[in-house]
């Protein structure tokens, strides 16, 4: 028995049929819509690699049931900006050469984008507090902080 779900992702409307309406959003994005992000990191909302925006708020798509987001506007990293029209954070990330393996990238950029929206000029401590809980195994934290500051300065 499948359920029809309507989703708006990065400005495009989609209808998908799922076996389980409690399926986390992550699998709809990757599996049903064929998107390459967000990444599966832990599936436990502990790392952030699967962060997307739902109505502008950063949420962890690996534990968010589809049924809870069906009418919401979802933005992924791919929808945040493009190489031609990058979000300031994406431009800053390139400038600072932040990612190493980069698998964590959705968490940091999407969370920082939401942070900068509510607080366009955060202090060093506000950046750290705002991004607390996200994981980066390569240890790129210093570059992440530089990039967020650079993006804030661009805005």
């Amino acid at each position, binding site marked *: 028995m499948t359920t029809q779900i309507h989703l708006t992702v990065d400005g495009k409307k989609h209808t998908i049929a*799922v*076996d*389980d309406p409690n*399926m*986390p959003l992550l*699998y709809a994005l*990757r*599996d049903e819509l*064929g*998107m*390459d*992000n967000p*990444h*599966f*990191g*832990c*599936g*436990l909302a*502990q*790392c952030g*690699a699967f962060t997307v925006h739902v109505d502008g708020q950063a949420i962890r798509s690996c534990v968010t049931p589809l049924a809870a987001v069906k009418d919401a506007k979802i933005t*992924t*990293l*791919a929808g945040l*900006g*493009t*190489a031609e029209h*990058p979000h300031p954070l*994406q431009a800053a*990330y*390139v400038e600072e*050469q*932040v*990612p*190493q*393996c*980069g*698998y*964590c*990238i*959705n968490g940091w*950029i999407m969370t920082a984008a939401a942070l900068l929206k509510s607080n366009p000029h955060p202090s*060093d401590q506000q950046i*750290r*507090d705002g*991004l*607390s*809980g*996200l*994981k*980066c*195994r*390569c*240890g*790129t*934290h*210093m*570059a*992440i*902080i530089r990039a967020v500051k650079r993006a804030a300065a661009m805005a």
Partner: protein
Amino acid sequence: MNAITNILKSDLTRRGILKSAGALVISFSAPVALAEAATAAIVPKPLDPTQLDSYLAVHRDGSVTVFFGKIDGGQGTDVGIAQIVAEELDLPADRVAVVMGDSALTINQGGASGSFGITWGGKPMRHAAAEARRFLVNLASERLKVPADKLSVANGTVFVTDAPGKKITYAKLIGGKFFNVAMKWNGKIGNDLDVDGGAPLKKPADYKVVGTAPKRRDVVAKVFAKPVYVTDVRVPGMVHARVIRPPVAGATLVSVDEASIKSIPGARVVQKNGFLAVIAPKEWNAIRAAQQLKASWTQPAPAFPEPGAIYDYIRQAPVRKRVVEGTKKGSVDDGMKDAVKVVTADYEWPFQSHASMGSACAVCEIKNGKVTIWTGSQKPHYAQAGVAALLGVPPENVHAIWMTGPGSYGRNDAGDAALEAAFIAQAVGKPVRLQGMRAEGIAWNAKGPASVHHARAGLDANGKIIAYQFESKGFSRLEVDSNESNPADSLVGQQMGIALKPTDSFGTPDDSYDVPNRLMAWETIPPLLDRVSPLRTSHLRDPVGPQIHFASESFIDELALAANTDAVEFRLKHLTGRDAAAVKAAADKFGWDTRVSGPRGDAKADIQTGRGIAYTKRLNTIVVVAAEVEVDRRTGKVRAKRFAVAHDCGCIVNPALLHNTIEGNIVQGTSRALHEEVRFDRQKVTSVDWETYPILDITEAPEKIDIVLLDHPEIPPTGAGEPSSRPVAGAIANAIFDATGIRLRRAPFTPAQIKGSQA
């Protein structure tokens, strides 16, 4: 025939793919050579390690592609290789594309390994580029009818030095054609591979590209969410797989209730001997099936010691192998006779997990007997060999394609995933995408080994070390090999009944301290289980470097204290040359205050501040780290606030990428020093996620990391991927002592340890 010979044999019979080369592995932000590489009509030719064409191609537009048998884990090794090749060819770096880690397009250069990417991996590429330049200049000499020594090259154009108008481009000379030039090959495959055609190399004084800072080629693709990861590979008709691990270590499968997942669309069980997995066309259904599947397992006796007693267990365990290694000088016993003071200490380091950002993923397709395996393994050529051996197919029928994995700092779970995906694909006759759940990459990957270290030294009347003995005992660093070419080194191989065949290996401190009498040794103990152990060991970034040098550099500090000498001054009394220069550079950058370490001021203050230093070498790369810590007496929490690092790895190819690589090492090293310890009970590993295996949070990241890069263009690069992981724990431990007077001899430096040590 061994695996390497197999791989070589298979390499020698293939090279038909150059026509469509590159598209799979070069990111969309790669330089202009990409487009040309993707369309270059170069006639198929087998990969042959003696042939220049196996390493380098000049396209019709004059751009170059190099075929590099290693991979890049995100530090920019490929950019460095492009710079080295561009330098020898007198091209800008952005005219050189790098194809990496594809077993059909690159000769096995050992994959990512031991920080050798530039050091060893760059050598044959540099020689090949120099050879190509010589060949092209000679060709130009014929065409222009001017002796070669009257010719110069700039930007891919050969011209007459005295009449620059007379010129011909690389593109015209050879674009789209093979060189057909043989070079002398040293007969080795893997890290040691080298070729040399005898062409002279450019003098470091003339470098224009090496030493500059072009940007990484994968960053733009990653930032804009392009499909660059192995997790992004999709093959038509593929199913998703999840493996089921035993509930406790050592348990074997008794029975599976296939009906228990009947309600999940398309889900089915894959089981052979002790190996158990589920597949489903939809990923979420595979996950649900894995969670829902009922299976019964044997209930073996507990395989592990009491977790609190692991270090006693190691001390009491039988020694399987003892090796005296590293610098050996004089006689420690004789030296001790002249000692006025003797210091001894013991140090302990826990099992640590690779805990990559995501658990490993692999995709496998088998079509007409030909196997394609997409893997994030650091060593794709060995994954090719392992898959071939496991499936019982000739290695030339396996094509391994490396794509960036969800993180990689050693032999993590990627090799296991590659062999499992292939095994399942063969069993079900469909393409398979396998990714581990979180516990696969934290609890079930192979671990960095737990160890104990015993140090003893004597000081003479001048406060110098006169005799020094350092011994480590622990689990081998190689219970599973550093690559997956042998199924015995994979979980699926072991679950199919092949027992672990561990290699005994550990290590000793690497430094240049001038000590007249010195002996260093290590001892390994048997693995806890002979197969499928979640506490089996493998290489984790700077294999055994952090543990050994936490111990040795803490001990040097203890000796400095015994000699009533400043920690920097004490080290400098025993060092000269580049080593001493690096210690001074780190101390200067840090603003080191010269004094005997130990608490000052108000011992009852809530926040206590201290500074510490550690100096280490790793295969001729010298790293010195000075750390400032704050210890909160109330909570026992340690904050590593500030670092100054001096880094000498010989010739610096790309200072900007080196800087970011060092920063990552310092932060990761801080995480390992302050937080990381694999928890387990007597039956299983209980560190299964980020809650139970915490790593450093951004709120704890240092405020500042100052890095001094000591460049020696005349010294060939000695490696930078991991050496700066090595001194971090020692520097922090020494700073904690300086702040509090508490000498921590066990990692990680948790609040419980601090609180437990407070008077």
